[in-house]
């Protein structure tokens, strides 16, 4: 077979190996000469699957000092709204590697993910601790890497507080919000989740349990052990199912 020759007429044969980037100026000039205008730089077409990475601390009502690596909810929530509204986006992959953070911000993100009408798949890599647990289970289907861990422990007080029974009740209510969300969106029972939360002897300075990949699946917290490949495959399956569903509804 004869190889296809790709000579630009005005360039001569000298720089065939130039990258497309180098050719751009001349084609741009051509366009301006022909049409009197140029395009806004076009990126590759929109991806139909978007990806949210939730890393470090989840930052909520208070800006954390700059040495903390944070995921801010004022960034994530508008992105979720945009994903819900954009018809070109068909599914969402949530990648988690978080140590926890603000309860309200974490629950807000979890609720947004749970109520998203598009298929969502989460994957816990490294760690999905504390408030990362409700975020991981909020998606339609959840994966955990075999070596990833999720720490389930009680909510603690930070900063000033007054030692009265009401403080404990308030804290208990906050904890209940997390427990209710997790048990509602995963297969784990409330008893089991609370048992893991108040277990002694697993964590050195704390009560709670560090749940590793396969155990998280065994307890029903996460759906399956897997990585990016399985997660993408699952997401594509869910997208296919949901598009069938909408076609049916049109008829």
């Amino acid at each position, binding site marked *: 077979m004869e190889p296809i020759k790709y000579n630009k007429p005005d360039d001569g044969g000298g720089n065939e190996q130039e990258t497309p980037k180098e050719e751009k100026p001349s084609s741009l000039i051509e366009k301006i000469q022909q049409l009197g205008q140029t395009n806004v730089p076009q990126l590759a077409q929109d991806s139909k699957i978007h*990806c949210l990475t939730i890393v470090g601390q989840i930052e909520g009502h208070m800006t954390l000092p700059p040495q903390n690596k944070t995921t801010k909810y004022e960034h994530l929530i508008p992105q979720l709204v945009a994903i819900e509204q954009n018809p070109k986006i068909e599914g969402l992959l949530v990648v988690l590697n978080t140590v926890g*953070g*603000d309860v309200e911000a974490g629950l807000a993100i979890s609720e947004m993910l749970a109520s998203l009408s598009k298929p969502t798949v989460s994957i816990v890599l490294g760690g999905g601790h*504390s408030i990362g647990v409700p975020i991981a289970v909020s998606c339609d289907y959840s994966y955990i890497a075999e070596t990833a861990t999720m720490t389930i422990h009680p909510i603690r007080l930070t900063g000033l507080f007054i030692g009265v029974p009401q403080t404990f009740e308030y804290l208990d209510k906050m904890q209940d919000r997390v427990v209710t969300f997790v048990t509602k969106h995963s297969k784990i029972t409330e008893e089991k989740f609370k048992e893991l939360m108040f277990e002694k002897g697993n964590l050195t300075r704390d009560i709670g349990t560090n749940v590793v990949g396969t155990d998280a699946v065994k307890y029903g917290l996460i759906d399956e052990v897997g990585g990016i490949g399985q997660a993408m495959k699952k997401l594509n399956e869910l997208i296919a199912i949901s598009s069938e569903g909408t076609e049916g509804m049109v008829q």
Partner: protein
Amino acid sequence: MILYTLTPPEMIFTNDNQEVSQQKMYHLDGIPLLVESDAEGAYRVVRVMSSDPAHYLDERCTPGAKISFL
């Protein structure tokens, strides 16, 4: 505010937080970026904030890349 995290509070709120973050948001052709201004007045990309995975393949805004307005 209640933090539900593994990180101990003394590690989150260290005493030496005099340093004010120089980071701000910047949009490059519709790609939301977290940038940091350097001494020369140019911006250095810290993080790509987009949810579109294709944006992460854009050479112009890989973390560490400089954006200058000259």
